[in-house]
């Protein structure tokens, strides 16, 4: 039976009630103590050899006969007015087929842009040129001979605040009486910290190949959401969704910045419609670093009040974000949820600046909030003379305070204990002894909170035929996280087949099996239960068929590791004895993610400890070791999960140590929008990492017991490093990243 029910869904902390399709046949959650044959065992990702051998075909590799190439003209100013573009000269360049700028009426609707006459950030698209070759397209851009008048711009936070350039409403949320509680607290700390503008810097830049034909619109897009991209293209170009096909076989990272179709796909399709040719628009690296989005910079002031024993009585947080002209507000989520506190207030404003609009970047806003709150907690622990981990344990809370709802699972206290044990936390003051190499060492910790429960809708189908291969069809896209391998494992586990008898597909909307956007750490907890549901249906049918073939009662049979077995062991036959009789017939199953439990909140938790070594002479900060323990429910693939945590730690470390967009104050233009001067970590910067999970299935959440892991591992790393720096040096840098110069200034 399939039914429609009203249920709450969540994406990155935004809650919505909607109709949800559920199945009565969904399997019960695997019991926590049930031994599993494949799930929970280290499994190399299926596409590993394809990726490392260069055989994987990314959007940037798509090449079609007659394909045109796009080059972009971008604003060289933070704010300006275009006064001249020589379209005729561009069109006269041999090979140039089309030019678009803000004066063209496009066949798709757009709230603003995407081609600007008055750009409001450096790198904004002014015009695009499509040509037979990229060289000709670039020559066309040059021939446009842009002239542009500068207009006044504001990128300075203090100036914007003074002039009250506030975007929309100032968000305020509170509970209790914060002012009174602060005034009456035994101990108060106040800390103002700044966090930098960080760029997603995916290895594969944003891009698309659009092909508009009579029958169908086909678009290869480097996107985190093929179905969102399909909806967007269908809506913008007024085409029925079933006539739009979006393909993303391999995606070279997204980190939040690749939502929906993106401007590259919209313009590629527009140009294809005009020229009748397939059109490729891939950002070059400079364009990507200027105009693909960012984690916006913040300035945050956190005040904490506590009793002398360390019980929090007040949390007060004020946040300014630098999103650009408009943005959303969620930096105060950790302040409102991370610790038990009756009196809490968060005030958050976005300043209107002439910057590229910020967008989602792995744990958007929550990483920023945790970075400030967890440094303030560290200061509080120091002021109170309490072990920072004990202070956190003392203020542990097992309900979501804004809603008052309990969590589906919360193993945070176990994370604290395990990370303390692994890192040798209690002995950390031994690091403060003078060392022979003259470096100052210290250890710091920070807590992680994030959603990541996933939810409906998410679907999967499985088909098995005469060859005995089970093909799982999903609508997810593997942006590099290994979710397709996890889906393969869950399907094989439920079916009772060896891993190599199961194939998984995704990254294509054509089968019309819906999967969610790879965002909010929702893919695994959304799609894996659907895969398991589909596998359970196929297995039920296979057991029926086995009953027919072996003249046994289906209820007395099981399918284990590719063999049909009776409960008394008398029957033990390979499954191909049954599937081999199917001929051209197939056995199909479909599954869907059920609703989330009512009256509960699903969140992930964790704690990381970092050890740093600081060179007080040069200001170099080296992260020597990071210990990470996270609660993500059941760990489906420990190998993939550890790999995901490693990536999160490195990206968080870079936020703490080296990544920062620098702007020329006289022009408002980023000065380091290239890979040679915007510093992501190199292999030589990678610290030792010890990674563990409190592997307790969340049986209340979904039938596989898994929560998400995309966001969690990046969240606590910067604060843990900043707190380790404080432990090592006795000083706190009031802004991240901890660049050499900033460290020398801080220690002076």
């Amino acid at each position, binding site marked *: 039976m399939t039914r429609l029910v009203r249920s709450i869904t969540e994406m990155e902390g935004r809650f919505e009630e909607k109709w949800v399709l559920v199945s009565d046949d969904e399997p019960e959650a695997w019991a926590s103590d049930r031994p599993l044959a494949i799930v929970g065992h280290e499994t190399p990702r299926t596409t590993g050899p394809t990726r490392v051998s260069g055989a994987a075909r990314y959007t940037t590799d798509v090449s079609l006969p007659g394909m045109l190439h796009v080059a972009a003209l971008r604003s060289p100013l933070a704010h300006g007015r275009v006064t001249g573009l020589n379209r005729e000269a561009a069109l006269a360049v041999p090979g140039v087929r089309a030019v678009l700028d803000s004066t063209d009426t496009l066949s798709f609707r757009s709230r603003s842009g995407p081609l600007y006459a008055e750009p409001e950030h450096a790198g904004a698209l002014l015009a695009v040129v499509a040509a037979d070759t990229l060289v000709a397209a670039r020559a066309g851009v040059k021939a446009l001979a842009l002239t542009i008048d500068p207009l006044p711009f504001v990128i300075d936070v203090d100036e914007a605040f003074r002039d009250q350039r506030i975007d929309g409403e100032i968000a305020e949320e509170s509970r209790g009486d914060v002012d009174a509680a602060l005034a009456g607290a035994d101990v108060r700390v106040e800390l103002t910290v700044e966090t930098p503008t960080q760029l997603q810097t995916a290895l594969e830049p944003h891009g698309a190949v659009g092909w508009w034909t009579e029958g169908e619109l086909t678009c290869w897009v480097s996107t985190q959401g093929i179905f969102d991209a399909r909806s967007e293209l269908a809506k913008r170009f007024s085409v029925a969704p079933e006539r739009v096909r979006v393909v993303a076989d391999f995606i070279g990272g997204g980190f939040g910045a690749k939502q929906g179709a993106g401007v590259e796909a919209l313009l590629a399709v527009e140009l294809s419609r005009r020229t009748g040719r397939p059109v490729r628009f891939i950002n070059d690296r400079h364009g990507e670093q200027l105009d693909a989005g960012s984690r916006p910079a913040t300035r945050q002031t956190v005040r904490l009040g506590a009793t002398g024993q360390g019980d929090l009585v007040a949390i007060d947080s004020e946040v300014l974000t630098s999103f650009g002209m408009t943005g959303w507000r969620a930096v105060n989520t950790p302040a409102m949820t991370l610790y038990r506190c009756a009196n809490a207030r968060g005030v958050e404003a976005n300043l209107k600046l002439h910057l590229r609009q910020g967008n989602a970047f792995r744990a958007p806003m929550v990483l920023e909030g945790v970075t400030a709150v967890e440094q303030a907690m560290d200061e509080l622990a120091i002021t109170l003379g309490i072990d920072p981990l004990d202070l956190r344990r003392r203020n542990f809370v097992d309900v979501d305070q804004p809603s008052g709802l309990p969590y589906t699972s919360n193993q945070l206290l176990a994370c604290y204990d395990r990370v303390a044990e692994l890192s040798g936390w209690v002995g950390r003051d031994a690091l403060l002894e003078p060392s022979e190499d003259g470096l100052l060492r210290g250890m710091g910790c920070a807590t992680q909170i994030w959603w990541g429960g996933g939810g409906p809708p998410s679907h999967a189908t499985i088909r098995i035929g005469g060859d005995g291969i089970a093909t799982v069809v999903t609508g997810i896209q593997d942006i590099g996280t290994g979710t397709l391998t996890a889906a393969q494992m869950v399907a094989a586990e439920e079916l009772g087949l060896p891993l190599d008898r199961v194939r998984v597909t995704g990254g294509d909307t054509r089968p019309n099996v819906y999967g969610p956007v790879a965002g909010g750490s929702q893919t695994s907890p959304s799609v894996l239960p659907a895969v398991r549901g589909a596998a359970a249906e196929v297995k039920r049918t296979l057991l029926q068929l086995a009953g027919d073939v072996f003249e046994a009662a289906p209820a007395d049979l099981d399918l284990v590791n590719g063999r049909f077995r009776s409960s008394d062991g008398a029957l033990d036959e390979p499954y191909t004895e049954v599937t081999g009789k199917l001929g051209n017939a197939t056995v199909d199953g479909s599954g869907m993610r059920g609703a989330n439990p009512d009256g509960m909140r699903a969140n992930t938790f964790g704690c990381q400890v970092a050890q740093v070594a600081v060179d007080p*002479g*040069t200001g170099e900060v080296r992260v020597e070791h990071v210990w990470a323990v996270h609660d993500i429910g059941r760990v489906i693939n420990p190998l993939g999960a550890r790999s995901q945590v490693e990536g999160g730690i490195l990206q968080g470390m870079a936020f703490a140590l*080296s990544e920062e967009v620098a702007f020329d104050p006289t022009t408002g233009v980023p000065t380091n929008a290239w890979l040679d001067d915007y510093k992501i970590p190199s292999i030589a910067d990678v610290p030792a990492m010890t990674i563990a999970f409190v592997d307790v299935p969340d049986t209340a959440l979904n039938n596989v017991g898994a929560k998400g892991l995309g966001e969690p591992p990046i969240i606590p790393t910067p604060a843990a490093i900043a707190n380790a720096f404080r432990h090592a040096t006795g000083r706190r840098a009031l802004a991240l990243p901890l660049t050499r110069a900033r460290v*020398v200034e801080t220690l002076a």
Partner: protein
Amino acid sequence: MTVLRPATLAAALAARSEHPGALLVAGGTDAMVAINSGRLRAEVTVDLTGVGELASWSRSGSTIRIGSGLTYTRLIAELGDLCPGLAMASRTVGSPQIRNRGTVGGNVATASPAGDALPPLVAAGAVIELASTDGVRRVPIGAFLVGPKRSLLAPNELITAIELPVARGPQQFSKVGPRNAMVIAVCSLAVDVDVASRRVAVAIGSAGPTTLRALEAEAVASAAIDWTTGALGDADLARFAALVAQAARPIDDVRGTAAYRRHALAVLARRSLGWSLEALRRAVA
């Protein structure tokens, strides 16, 4: 664009003479970046990778002659004992792939103030051998480097070799960058301790229009070191470091501030000379 691929030095010199100002490509680690980013257009390119004579080194008495086409990878593997300072600097260049392609001659020809190989060459008093169809001349590297990406290389000339003395004592090279690999130096420093002539030389990179010597600092250290024991008082070491910082002529740019560069150079100078004298003391003892 015309690409010439001479196989011999004579052919390379002829090509250079016929196309004065042609773009020279050795490892291409600077040139290709500039071409790909559109900063550099060349009508004629001379690819020097086929000229075997340039890709070797030899020793004659106490002098090492390094062919301009010798890669960093080979230099590190083969010259670590004879020119330790230059080998240390070479290890900090880019990534293994870049060190496989990049050449010392290219680093000298590019004449970037941030060139990693330049401080040890300047500290060691290297001589640049320049050849053209008109003949060969030798120019001290300090005179050869005249400004940011400017040198005395004439339009018809090639750098054929770099000559420098076999190390006459401990050498050090240190470099500050924003991460641990693949970085352009924020600042760098080479120290060359010549025990025989009782002289310390120090050269500063990435903190001035070109690689700089800190002559006053050198004189102070050379006079203050007890050359029989390798001892140097803390006050003298501090004075040396301060004079090195003073000799720098840094600017504020995207990689670092002038103030930070001076500070870091003092730290590098103190440590580099300290490590060198420690090695000297070990050798004496």
